């Protein structure tokens, strides 16, 4: 037994050493480093390699799953970073709490030139003077459905309450997104803090729960492709990907309106490499790079120059990737509701979940 343990250990050590010698930790690039904190799977890794090669700046890349996970880490400085990519309402919260540095747009020529005017306009909802953020991706939230499983035309959020589709519905597992669906269904604003309206929405979500197969975030993509469910609430960027994999799927923006979201690059105040952060953001706004990212992650790009470079007509004119927003009513962007608002939402959401 003793001998055997010894040999197990020896074998383990040998494996370790072999693996260890194979790849070593790499230090800074010749022009320093930039720490990027982004959503999971939200960038084409090739563009990072290109950036490192062209600028000699080493990219330290980390990912987060939700805005809420990212926030305390940046706030406490527990993980210092130079560039972050939060969503609209979180940017507003970070501005409110004085966490962000003003950007020097002189150093961001590509951003000024290539990002479409309408996206700067939309950004004003959370970054009033366009001082802190550069749009990276945007999109809508809608219903993805499987044409072989849903017969009637899908036009309204109310189909997610149809008992015919019990156990065939996938909901978003995040407070704001789930409440957005219920609030819009009832004709309320998705930024409401009115308790009566929120109670109604909560009741709607509780009523819906028995019909829901699962609350998921991005798994909705794999599940819809595999035909696990008939209907799912999904981000438009994921919808393009799923259609590519399974042609039975279709995406609709419901008539009651929905969420227009923007994820933008921002630089925290305590960023150690302010200069490199600007270089990175500007690099991401270069048309060829933005195009590469669009093709990889399939989320709509606000980069007009990149859009013009898309070769496939179907995608360039796709109503999913680039919808004509004037056709829809009641489109809104999330805004930060303050600490009390957040708490109220969280409390109600917990009630839904534990019911």
């Amino acid at each position, binding site marked *: 037994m003793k001998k055997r343990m010894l040999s197990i250990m020896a074998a383990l050590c040998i494996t370790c050493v072999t693996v*260890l010698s194979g790849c070593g930790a790499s230090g800074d690039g010749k022009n320093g480093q930039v720490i990027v904190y982004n959503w999971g799977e939200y960038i084409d890794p090739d563009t990072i390699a290109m950036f490192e090669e062209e600028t000699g700046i080493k990219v330290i890349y*980390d990912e987060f799953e939700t805005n809420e996970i990212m926030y305390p880490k940046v706030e406490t400085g527990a993980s210092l970073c130079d560039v972050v990519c939060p969503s609209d309402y979180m940017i507003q919260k970070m501005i409110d709490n004085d966490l962000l540095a003003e950007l020097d747009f002189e150093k961001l020529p590509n951003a000024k030139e290539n990002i479409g005017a309408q996206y700067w306009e939309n950004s004003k909802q959370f970054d009033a003077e366009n001082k802190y953020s550069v749009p990276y991706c945007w999109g809508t939230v809608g219903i993805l459905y499987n044409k072989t499983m849903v017969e009637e035309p899908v036009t309204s959020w109310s189909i997610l309450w149809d008992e015919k589709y019990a156990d065939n519905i996938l909901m978003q597992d995040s407070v704001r997104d789930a409440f957005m669906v219920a609030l819009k269904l009832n004709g309320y604003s998705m930024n409401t803090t009115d308790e009566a309206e929120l109670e109604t929405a909560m009741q709607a979500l509780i009523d819906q729960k028995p019909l829901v197969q699962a609350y998921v975030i991005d798994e909705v993509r794999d599940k819809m492709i595999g035909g*696990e469910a008939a209907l799912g609430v999904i981000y438009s960027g994921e919808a393009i990907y799923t259609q590519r*994999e399974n042609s039975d799927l279709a995406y609709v923006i419901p008539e009651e309106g929905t969420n227009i979201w923007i994820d933008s690059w921002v630089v925290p105040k305590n960023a150690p490499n302010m200069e490199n952060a600007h270089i990175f953001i500007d690099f991401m706004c270069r048309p060829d790079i933005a195009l590469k990212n669009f093709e990889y992650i399939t989320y709509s790009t606000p980069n007009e120059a990149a859009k013009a470079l898309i070769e496939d007509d179907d995608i360039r004119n796709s109503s999913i990737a680039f919808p004509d927003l004037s056709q829809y009513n009641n489109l809104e962007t999330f805004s930060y509701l303050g600490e009390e608002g957040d708490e109220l939402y969280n409390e109600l959401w917990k009630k839904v979940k534990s019911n």
Partner: protein
Amino acid sequence: MINFIKRFYIGIIFIFLYAPIVTLIVLSFNASKTRAKWGGFTFNWYVSLLQDEIILQALWNTLIIAFLSSLIATLIGTAACVAMQGMSKRMRTIFMGITNIPMLNADIVTGISLMLLYISLGVRFGFSTILLSHITFNIPYVILSVMPRMKQLNPHTYEAALDLGASHIHAFFKVVFPDILPGVLTGFLMAFTMSLDDFIITHFTKGAGIDTLSTKIYTEVKKGIKPEMYALSTIIFMTVILLLLVINIFGKKSAQKAPQKNKGGIKL
């Protein structure tokens, strides 16, 4: 008949334990990128795995953290066990009580408490915080596997060695250490395995730019696992199996040479 039932039972449990693993291995050869569809047989993921620096870096992090943390934990833990031998009963109870805290506490509580500590100390999250945390939850595994060996030890042999003129250190390594070695090794292995498999504590104590395989997979779960990950776990799994087979063959040979001590197997 009884033998057949035994085999059958082991077989059932075996299937239960290995069905998901077979699934993962099959998925690593699936040409389609999504878990849900079978797109034909391919070796592509193995090829692209070797070029995927991010996954390889995560693998390196996982292994080096597992190795360092279990090594340091083994040193500290073994030293503590030796020290505990000379303690009063009360002190020893307190010591063992503290040791039991990370074992009995929920991983989530341990992870969070460490996160709060690092934040309040202003330590930057990264490699070192993960390493420190892993050492912390590894030490108890070492202590709990060395302690029983320590108790079985005959203190007189150690004193005899001293009487015969051996220095403390010499006596320890000649007399005590060989006897507790199996415990030390099991502790090390246990710690290594726990560190490899840990997700929750790493999740709360990691910083930007560093990922172990577990945290990498967790971010990927939300977005759809990259098939390279299946390929990697298949490789790891196969390596371990191969090692075990080799060891078993060697082990059998040495077992035949050295007569086994009384193992006291129970036969019903």
